[in-house]
């Protein structure tokens, strides 16, 4: 089994186990306020990190290219309250145009 398959199946298995666990354990075991606080912050940290890494790194090196311009445009679109799709497409179009120049 290659590593992509391992990624697909491992992610799927754990994702389901986490969901099912929530439905199966009594609520009183998981209401620690610290855990709940950290849990709402984890997606913020991980997703932000993914934005950073995918925008200006490539194979472990810092690379400034058309992606940065695309993400900057996405940031502007978001601050103008554009819908998700407009955000993604505007980033793609910006990056594609610069790439082809």
């Amino acid at each position: 089994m290659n590593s992509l398959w391992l990624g697909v199946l491992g992610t799927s298995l754990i994702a389901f186990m986490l969901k099912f666990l929530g439905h199966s354990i009594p609520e009183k075991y998981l209401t620690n306020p610290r855990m709940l606080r950290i849990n709402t912050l984890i997606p913020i940290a991980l997703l932000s990190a993914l934005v950073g890494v995918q925008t200006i790194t490539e194979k472990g090196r810092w690379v400034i290219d058309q992606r940065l311009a695309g993400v900057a445009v996405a940031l502007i679109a978001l601050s103008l309250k554009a819908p998700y799709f407009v955000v993604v497409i505007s980033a793609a179009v910006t990056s594609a145009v610069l790439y082809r120049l």
Partner: protein
Amino acid sequence: MFRATATQSLSVSFTVGLYGTAFGAASIAAGFSILQTCLLSLLTFSGASQFAIVGVMGAGGNALSGIATASLLGIRNGLYGLRMAPILKVRGVKRVIAAQVTIDESTGVAIGQENLGLDAMKQGFWLTGFGVYIFWNFFTLLGALGAQAMGNPSAWGLDAAVPAAFLGLVWPRLTGKFERVLAATAVILAIALSPIISAGLPIIATALLAVAFGWKERR
């Protein structure tokens, strides 16, 4: 049947399902096959985790760091399950199905119906859960086929569309200064660590940042 609940469920399902196109395209751009892409949507069925596994492995990270990142993002679904279980009160196969469709949107719509009573909450959960499932998987396939037809991801801007998709996911969560500081710190930390430790690990490292930020209660 609550009509307002049904309308809300369907509109949420369709809009969220549309993002499946972005995932399908991102996954192909990251080097996953169409079958693997569709299986991620069918089996993992949790947008942020799916983007994370293809994001980390697409950037050269190994399977373990990809799975770890995706799973950290999946913990919240467990907490949603905890919230939904006493409302749904299901067992056996039904519980398995309920668990699979326990995501941001199904839980969100269900909780939004609180003032209409338990039945409306249940209806909101199931309709949104199934609705998102159907649209998300359909649009994933569409996005995957589209991306494969396009060829070079950079030429179509897919290389920027993926981080922009993450940005769009995190944006609604940045509700205050505290959250924005955390986000900015995470970006800087992950970028700074990238040349030093192997791909995927810089992202997981920022989970510790979340632990540090959330450790103490804020006033």
